[in-house]
């Protein structure tokens, strides 16, 4: 998030939520937004094909056809530009490339946009009017925007919108992706990505490589690595021969489960560090028992870049060990077995850590945005959001207040592109996927929580009343959903949450996981799969 949850919820005059099921996926932030709408009359625009819970609080709900976000955004910006509602001084002072961008947007008159998105023209106007009148407006999104082959372009177009309205760099505004996992922000910040060292220092930049070679005392690889969506297909091509997996369950979370299972069958060696046997552990050669969050001390970084302490509350169960200890022990052993890479006198070449506070000290030294974030400061009650470069820096609740990272904000001309998979006669409906309030991702934790299973104990597939009627589907009956890659059967939930022609399925339950059906059509830059648009066929399962 460029901004913080409290300035957004307390100071925004309007919220624009697009592709985020906020009240189910970020429930406590969702309640802050509900409070803002109810208690101080903030305007809420929700753009989502589904009638998700937060639409009950919405001033306006736009139900765009899945995969048409760019057309919708361009249509709204067309109206803003036509009426001269853009923030001319912000555009003049803080941005560039406006004219090229404008030329593209002017190709999207509302009538055309209504045709592409199925959002009525008057609603597109209403959205533009609210955005023009209610400033600052904060934009929030999540995987509904990013899990498309145009994920990156969707995000750029949202940045266009906020620059056009002058909503950047001020309290109550900003571009605010809501990060899913508890520490997905931190995992990215710490270099858990194939193209960057910690703090997004590029592996292709000489300067960054030299820095880490000096720090770690080992020569660096100049080649950008593989993403998870490239490693898995790489197994079948002989490019990936071993995987070391920490606390992930690709069989549940990756697209096209059948293909993932087949890949794992062919993998030479899989080390899995986990707390539970999972769908993936069936394919592991070695299982190393790590610990849950309750057994460890360290830090998580939340969606607003706030670094917070995690405190060990109980001793590791059984013979399970701290995850950092396991990684360090493997490192020491491999370094002994590969003498050509034995580190030199470099300051951070070693793997002897007494605790995670010492690891954080190493992070401070090598990660500019975390330079001043120590356990000691956090334990003293300081509330730090990165960038926080020095021990006396107070942290940065709002980004881009004076200028953007690259200097001027660059408007990007973005055109609508249809989703990779289109419905046809055999697969006439669209399936979108995601999580539900009660469960978490592949379900390894929440399926082992007794109360949660009592409330939501099996996969439900959302089907619209219109389609239920057409299919002859009764409440609580089972449906069979088939895509070009697989088939699942689960109980139907007949609900107007989904529009006609669309179903919604989750991936919490191995016996009916939506990822059996999804496909690995990737965004060319982010390599994110298009989970939100899969062409499917839906049938009623006849009782025997």
């Amino acid at each position: 998030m460029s901004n913080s949850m409290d300035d957004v919820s307390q100071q925004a005059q309007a919220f624009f939520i697009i592709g985020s099921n906020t009240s189910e996926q970020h429930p406590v932030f969702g309640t802050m937004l509900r409070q803002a709408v109810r208690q101080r009359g903030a305007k809420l625009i929700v753009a989502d094909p589904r009638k998700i819970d937060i639409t009950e609080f919405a001033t306006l709900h736009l139900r765009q056809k899945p995969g048409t976000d760019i057309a919708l955004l361009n249509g709204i910006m067309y109206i803003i530009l036509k009426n001269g509602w853009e923030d001319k001084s912000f555009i003049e002072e803080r941005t560039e490339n406006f004219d090229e961008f404008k030329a593209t947007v002017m190709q999207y008159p509302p009538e055309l946009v209504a045709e592409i998105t199925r959002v009525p023209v008057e609603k597109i106007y209403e959205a533009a009017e609210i955005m023009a009148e209610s400033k600052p407006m904060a934009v929030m999104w999540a995987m509904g925007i990013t899990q498309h082959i145009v994920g990156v372009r969707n995000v750029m177009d949202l940045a266009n919108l906020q620059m056009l309205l002058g909503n950047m760099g001020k309290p109550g505004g900003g571009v605010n992706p809501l990060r899913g996992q508890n520490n997905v922000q931190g995992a990215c910040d710490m270099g858990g990505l194939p193209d960057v060292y910690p703090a997004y220092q590029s592996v292709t930049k000489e300067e960054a490589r030299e820095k880490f070679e000096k720090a770690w005392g080992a020569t660096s690889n100049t080649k950008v690595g593989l993403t998870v969506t490239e490693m898995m297909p790489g197994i079948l091509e002989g490019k990936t021969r071993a995987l070391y997996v920490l606390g992930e369950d690709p069989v549940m979370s990756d697209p096209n489960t059948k293909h993932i299972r087949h890949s794992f069958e062919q993998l030479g060696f899989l080390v899995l560090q986990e707390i539970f046997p999972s769908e993936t552990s069936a394919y592991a050669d070695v299982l190393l028992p790590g610990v849950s969050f309750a057994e460890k001390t360290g830090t998580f970084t939340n969606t607003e870049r706030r670094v917070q302490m995690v405190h060990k509350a109980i001793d590791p169960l059984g013979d399970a060990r701290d995850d950092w200890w396991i990684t360090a022990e493997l490192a020491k052993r491999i370094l002994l077995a590969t003498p050509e890479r034995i580190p030199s006198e470099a300051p951070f070449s070693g793997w002897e850590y007494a605790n995670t506070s010492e690891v954080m000290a190493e992070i401070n030294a090598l990660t500019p945005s975390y330079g001043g974030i120590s356990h000691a400061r956090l334990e003293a009650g300081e509330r730090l959001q990165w960038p926080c470069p020095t021990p006396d820096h107070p942290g940065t609740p709002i980004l881009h207040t004076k200028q953007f990272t690259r200097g001027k904000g660059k408007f990007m001309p973005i055109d609508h592109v249809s989703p990779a998979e289109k419905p046809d006669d055999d697969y006439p409906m669209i399936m979108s996927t995601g999580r539900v309030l009660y469960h978490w991702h592949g379900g390894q934790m929440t399926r082992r929580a007794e109360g949660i299973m009592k409330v939501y104990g099996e996969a439900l597939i959302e089907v619209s009343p219109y389609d239920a009627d057409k299919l002859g589907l009764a409440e609580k009956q089972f449906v069979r959903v088939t895509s070009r890659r697989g088939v699942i059967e689960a109980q139907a939930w007949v609900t107007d949450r989904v529009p006609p022609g669309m179903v919604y399925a989750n991936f919490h339950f191995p016996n009916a996981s939506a990822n059996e059906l999804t496909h690995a059509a990737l965004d060319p830059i982010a390599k994110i799969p298009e989970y939100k648009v899969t062409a499917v066929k839906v049938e009623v399962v006849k009782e025997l």
Partner: protein
Amino acid sequence: MIHLKINGQDVQAEEGMTVLQAAQQVGVTIPTLCDHPDLEAYGGCRLCVVDVKGWRTPMASCTMEVTNGMEVVTHSPEIETTRKTILEMLMSNYYDAGYENGQKQETQLMQWARHYGVDAKTGMAPAPRYAVNSDPNPFVWVDMNKCIQCTRCVRACTDIQGRFVWGMAERGINTHPVPGADTDMLDARCESCGACVAYCPTGALDNKMSMGAGKPDKLVMTTCGYCGVGCQYELNVKDNKVIRVTSTEKAPVNGNHLCVKGRYGYDFIHHPERLLKPQVRRYLLEGKKKPFISKPLALSNAEGSATSNQWDWVETDWDTALDITSQKLAGIKKEFGADTIGVLTSAKCTNEENYLMNKFTRQVLGTNNIDHCARL
């Protein structure tokens, strides 16, 4: 600024503040039950009454705004007698069936009863009026015999969760909170966030998962491991077991509020399926070739059986598992190159662990093949 006197002391308060807030500001504790700083003031229980010069009867300090020149007395023999009488009256409608509750400490009602010498046992109602544990919600224990009609549950659900599950039903002595149109909580669209439990001062709403779990040995403030909001809460620990999660106003992001997964989704920690010993496949211990896990697509092979005992798990000590793993990874690196090894780090793990996974991949293995589920 408003100038007033509280117990003879000159006090400055901001305009719009209540007498209660002005008193709290200068460290004067006025007993309260229906009031909570997170919720809109209600003025229902009257325990916070104070004497205000010029007013004929004691006034509820939680709803009375400060005015210039106001003279307030928060504690006097008369006021204390009034408070004791209020507690006795509340207690006469209260009934405790005698079970061990699910609270981390004595409830607020019991604290004040003890403070004012009101004996809950002798002073309570002679018989229950409602069923104990009357709602099937798996997280929220409902016992309306303990309800004092303070409406904190109603306000918590409305003001904080924005879900409007609870409302007050019936009249007079029979007034009590009901979910929806007197249905059950889930049917009334409850999201099981537990806010009503967290704000209930009597245990009428309680933590079902923690009934009888006892008081914690320690409370450990930590950060939730589910979503990216970064809520903090206290893990209640007893005998190395998490017995409860309690919210606290000290949490920077979420204060007293949590969602169902944060407050009630913790029992996976002690689930019997937890992996507690390193395990390796038998073939690794015996130095054999890896068996086919199942039949490869185009091949059929005698070894290709999922039931091959070479594929059985064998529990080992740490040294064995770590040695085997490091030898295999070092061997693959040597034979095929570092770029044939991939590392998936974890968005569920800490920054420190992720940093080390990044260092492991780049320094120890010598590849940039590291990723995690950010895309999924």
